[in-house]
């Protein structure tokens, strides 16, 4: 269980309260600048809150020591830069640093994650020779390689093609099905509705709504959060969202 109470950081995030149980995928949505990344960074310990706190499985996330946090939490940044022309295999190995696991377990995780993200063929390639999409997959694999129970992913499907967007969200969903709590910041509301059990809608740093996608993705809430008029259209393949600017 993740309990966030009164979490604030100046005006970027104000008085956010959440109670999210493990074993589900939760989408964090909102317009640009709504505070999605800031919220995830606060939970990841990258930013220090000005007030409030967060507790995960009875551990205070803001006062936990880095080693404990490492075992509990995986954070995937919007963009991870690899600064040296090391191989994919080496980057994966280094991303397992400080994980309290046996060597054979770590090797197993590496093989499993490489296969999951389709990196087996790329293992010996320098990261500087990869395409944007391949690099993004390496970044995701590096973030998820530790099998931690709390996963915070900040726009993990940005710059991925349609197939890899779906595959990535399916992998995150699979982690949630296996018992992890996955918080994922997303811009694609249709995918958020499809993959997430709950959505957290932020607006100007404040929590506007939290609940099941059908409740949160209502016309009025989306209009308030995104300043657009949204129409949900049902068709033979499913549901599509048609956004319109309010001035249209």
């Amino acid at each position: 269980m993740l309990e966030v109470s009164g979490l604030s950081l100046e005006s970027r995030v104000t008085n956010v309260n959440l109670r999210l149980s493990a074993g589900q995928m939760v989408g964090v949505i909102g317009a640009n600048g709504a505070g999605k990344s800031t919220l995830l960074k606060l939970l990841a310990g990258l930013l220090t809150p000005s007030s409030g706190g967060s507790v995960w499985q009875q551990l205070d996330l803001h006062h936990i020591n880095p080693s404990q946090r490492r075992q509990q939490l995986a954070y995937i940044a919007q963009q991870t830069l690899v600064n040296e022309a090391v191989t994919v295999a080496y980057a994966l190995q280094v991303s397992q640093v400080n994980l309290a696991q046996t060597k054979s377990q770590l090797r197993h995780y590496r093989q499993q994650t490489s296969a999951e993200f389709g990196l087996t063929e790329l293992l010996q390639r320098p990261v500087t020779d990869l395409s944007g999409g391949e690099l993004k997959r390496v970044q995701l694999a590096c973030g998820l390689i530790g099998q931690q129970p709390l996963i915070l992913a900040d726009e993990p499907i940005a710059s991925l093609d349609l197939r890899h967007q779906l595959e990535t969200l399916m992998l995150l969903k699979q982690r949630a099905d296996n018992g992890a709590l996955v918080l994922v910041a997303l811009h694609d509301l249709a995918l958020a509705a499809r993959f997430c059990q709950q959505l957290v809608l932020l607006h100007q740093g404040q929590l506007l709504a939290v609940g099941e996608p059908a409740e949160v993705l209502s016309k009025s809430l989306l209009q308030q959060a995104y300043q657009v008029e949204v129409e949900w259209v049902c068709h033979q393949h499913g549901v599509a969202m048609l956004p319109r600017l309010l001035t249209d």
Partner: protein
Amino acid sequence: MRVKLWLVLCLASLLIGLGYLGSGVDGWRLLPENALESAILFEIRLPRLVLAGLNGMALGMAGAVLQLQLKNPLAEPGITGIAGGAGLATVVALYWGGLTPIAWSLPLVGMLGGALSLILLWLLSRGQMFGLRLILAGVALASLTGALMAVVLNLAPNPFAFQEWALWLMGSVANRGWSHVWLMAPSLVLALLLLLSQRRFLSAQIFDDATIATLGFQLGWNRFLIFAAVTLLVSASVVTAGIIGFVGLLAPHAARLLGQHQPLPMILLSALLGAWLLMLMDWLVRLIPTPVELQLGVVVSLIGAPWLLILLYRQHSAKY
């Protein structure tokens, strides 16, 4: 290709060693034949060679560590202000001149100057020893110490003192003895041990700082230890050989161009290349016929800069 390059490097190293250490007064001989030649070999040339090698190692290692830590391929010991701090403290001590009776006092003051620069860097970067703030603080500190050194030189009591201090600042391993080697070696060993204790943190430097912050390190402490090692390396180099630029920039790039990109092997290869480079340059200093022996730091920059440009030109299509 890489094997051939290594063979060439090894052969060149052997030739440097032989060329450097030849002991004959009236022609080259490997082994000394009398007491004078023995003194030349063991008391002058050998410590000079070893000191050049150790300095190159220290600067090559420090440069590689700084480039990794600051995520900046232009980083080198000079931009941190640590070399400037050690140099300034030494020049100030020379100006007051009251320290010469104790042999270890001058180097000690230089080392303290380097340590003081580290503390200032830590304060100026508000304890965050990474990122642009640290680089800017280092550049400002380097400029300030450089200006203050110029002031001290300007106030030199006589032209001889001015010339002596100015030449010392240009960097050289001439007229050094085993005492300088014994000063350099423990700092190098201690710095190496510090860096080895931080090997995981150094390996993680392939990632950006935000990612590293989530990998379970005690960031402030890890970064401070890394900079303490760099301070030891750079300060020891400055107090034994003056300010030798460029090796710290060139050696890590040469290591990458030789195909080594993993942090720890890259740091070690950079140290070896730094040692090789400085020994080669010092040999050239001795060979180049000039009325006054050129300073090592000057020759390193004169030859190193075009060499780096050639390497970069030949590697135009490679990314590293």
